[in-house]
C-alpha cells in the first residue's frame, strides 16, 4: 500500500518533470534563430517565393501565439504523434526507436562496465589508504576523470583502429553490408571501442567516490571492531565494505545516466556510430525541430527513471532508510 502510494507520487513528479522539460525545450526552440520553414525546406529554400513561405507558415499555425502552438504540440504529443523527422525522412518515433536500440547496448555495456570496474577498483584502493595500490588506482582515476571524452575517443581510434587495426574505424557494421546481414559478432566488434571509451570515463568518478567511502569506512569503529575479531583486510572489505561503499556507487551510477548520455553523444560522433547520440547532434546541426524536441523529452525520461531506480535501490540496500519510510 505504501509502496503504491510512493510509486504514484514519484510518477506524478516524473510527469511534472517531463512537462517542464517539454515547456522549456519548446520555449528554447521558439527563441532559437532556427526558422522552422527554412529548416523544413532545407536546400530548396531558394526556390520558394515569400508568398509561398507565408502560406506554409499559416498552414502550420506559426502565426498563432506561442501558447496556442505549445498547446497544439502537447496535444499531438499526448496522442503519441511525435512528428516527422525531415533529415531521416521517417516518423520521429521510428528514428528514436531504431537509434535507441543501437545506443542501448552501447550505454548499457558501458554503464555496467564502469559500475563494476569502478566499485572493484574503489574498494581495492580504499581498503588500504595510502598503499601503493591505492596510489596507482587513484592516480589513474584522477587522470581519466580529467580527460575529455572526445579526445580519449580520438586517441583510441588512432591507436587501435588506425595504427594497430584491431577494431573497425566507424559505424555499427561494415560498409556496403545490409544491417540485417551483420552478424552479432561483427556488431560486438564495432561496439567494442566506443563502449570501452565511454566506460573508461564513468569508471573514474565511481572509483573515486567508492574509494572515499571505503577509506572512511576503514577508519570507522565498525572496521576496528572487525579487526579486533581477527578479520583480515580482505574479509572486512568483502563483508562490510562492499555494502557500505556500493551505496554511493549505485546512486552515482544511476544519477549519472545524464552524463553517460552526454558522453555517448561525443563518442558516437567520433566513432560515427549511428545511435541516438549521433542523431541528437545531427538534429541540432540540421534544425530537425521535432526530432530534437522528442530526443530532449526522451532523455529526460531516461534520466528521471534512472534517478527513480536509484532512490528505490538506496532503500533496499540501506535498512535504515527503509525503516524511516515506514515510520512516516
Amino acid at each position, binding site marked *: 500500500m505504501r509502496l503504491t502510494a510512493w510509486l504514484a507520487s514519484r510518477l506524478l513528479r516524473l510527469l511534472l518533470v517531463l512537462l517542464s522539460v517539454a515547456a522549456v525545450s519548446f520555449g528554447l526552440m521558439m527563441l532559437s534563430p532556427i526558422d522552422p520553414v527554412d529548416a523544413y525546406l532545407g536546400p530548396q529554400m531558394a526556390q520558394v517565393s515569400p508568398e509561398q513561405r507565408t502560406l506554409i507558415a499559416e498552414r502550420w499555425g506559426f502565426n498563432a501565439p506561442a501558447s496556442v502552438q505549445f498547446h497544439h504540440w502537447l496535444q499531438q504529443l499526448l496522442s503519441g504523434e511525435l512528428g516527422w523527422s525531415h533529415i531521416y525522412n521517417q516518423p520521429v518515433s521510428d528514428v528514436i526507436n531504431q537509434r535507441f536500440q543501437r545506443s542501448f547496448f552501447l550505454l548499457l555495456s558501458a554503464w555496467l562496465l564502469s559500475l563494476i570496474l569502478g566499485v572493484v577498483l574503489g574498494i581495492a584502493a580504499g581498503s588500504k589508504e595510502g598503499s601503493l595500490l591505492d596510489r596507482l588506482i587513484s592516480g589513474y582515476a584522477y587522470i581519466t576523470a580529467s580527460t575529455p571524452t572526445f579526445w580519449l575517443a580520438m586517441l583510441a581510434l588512432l591507436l587501435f583502429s588506425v595504427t594497430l587495426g584491431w577494431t573497425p574505424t566507424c559505424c555499427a557494421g561494415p560498409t556496403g553490408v545490409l544491417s540485417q546481414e551483420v552478424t552479432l559478432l561483427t556488431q560486438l566488434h564495432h561496439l567494442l571501442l566506443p563502449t570501452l571509451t565511454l566506460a573508461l570515463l564513468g569508471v573514474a568518478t565511481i572509483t573515486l567516490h567508492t574509494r572515499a567511502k571505503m577509506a572512511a569506512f576503514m577508519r570507522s569503529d565498525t572496521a576496528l*571492531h572487525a*579487526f*579486533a575479531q581477527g578479520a583480515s583486510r580482505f574479509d572486512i572489505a568483502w563483508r*562490510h565494505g562492499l555494502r*557500505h561503499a556500493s551505496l554511493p556507487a549505485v546512486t552515482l551510477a544511476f544519477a549519472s545516466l545524464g552524463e553517460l548520455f552526454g558522453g555517448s553523444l561525443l563518442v558516437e560522433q567520433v566513432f560515427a556510430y549511428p545511435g541516438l547520440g549521433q542523431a541528437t547532434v545531427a538534429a541540432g546541426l540540421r534544425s530537425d525541430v521535432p526530432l530534437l524536441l522528442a530526443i530532449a523529452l526522451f532523455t529526460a525520461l531516461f534520466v528521471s527513471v534512472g534517478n527513480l531506480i536509484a532512490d528505490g535501490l538506496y532503500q533496499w540496500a540501506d535498512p*535504515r532508510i527503509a525503516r524511516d519510510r515506514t515510520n512516516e
Partner: protein
Amino acid sequence: MLTIDRLTLQLPYYPRWWRREWTTCIESLSLHLPPGEVHAVVGASGAGKSLLAYAIMGLLPQAARVAGELRFQGEDLTPARQRQLRGHQLALIPQSLNALDPLARSQHQVRWAAQRAGFGRSAAHQRADELLSRYQLSHASTHYPHELSGGMARRVLIAMAQVSNARLVIADEPSVGLDPNQRDRVLAALKAIALEGKAVMLITHDLRHALTIADRVSVIRQGQALETAPAQAFQGQGEQLMSCYARDLWQALPDNAFSTHPFHPTHQEPALA
C-alpha cells in the same frame, strides 16, 4: 594469563606543519591479570584506558611508539602473535555501539565473528544462534543495530566477543549509557565469563559498579597505574588504599562521604563522570 610490564605508549602529534612531537599516553604501566578474575581498570576519561585495550589487542595506529613488555600465557605478545590471537584468544568488547555494522543483522554480525574465530559456515551459524539465545537476543536476531536498544546492542557486542571462548576478554566501558537493570545484566554476564576461568579486563570510569563484580581494581591516572588493590580494600574510609587519588576517588562516591578533597581539586572528575 596477561602480564603487562612497564608498558609505555606514545602517539605523535603535529604542533606545526613539519614538526612532530610525541605525547605520552601510557607511562610505565604494569598489570597482571590471572585467569578467573575480573580486573577493573578505573580512571577518568583520557587516562589512557581505551589505548591500553588497543595496545593489548594490537589495534594501535601505525605511528604509535610502544615500549615495554606484553606477555600472554607466558609468551611475548608480538604484533604477529596479536594478529594471530585476535578473535581467537583475545576478545574485545568495544566501547562504542557504532562498532556494530549498521547494515548487518544481529545474527550475521555474531556469525561473522564466529567465522573469523575459525568456525565453519554451518557451525558458525549454530554458534551464533546459541550465543544470541544465551544473551536473550533470539527475538532480535534479524534486527539491524538501529532497531536494538542500547542494552541489546551491548549484549550483541558481548555475544560477539564470546564466540571463540577467548581466554582474555577486554570490556571497554560496557555499562555506559545503560539503565540500572540493563547495566546489572551486562556486568553479570562479564562476571559469568570470569567464572568460566577466563580473564576479564573491565575498563570503566564507574568505580562503584565495577566493584560489584571486580576481584581487583587498578586505578589509572594520566597513563600511570597508581595502585592495584583488591576490591575489598574499597570500604570504610578507604584506609587500606595506598594512593591519595584512589582514596579520594572512593571518598567522592555519592554512597560514601561524597567529598572532594581540598588539596586535590583536580581529582574529582572521575566520580562525576
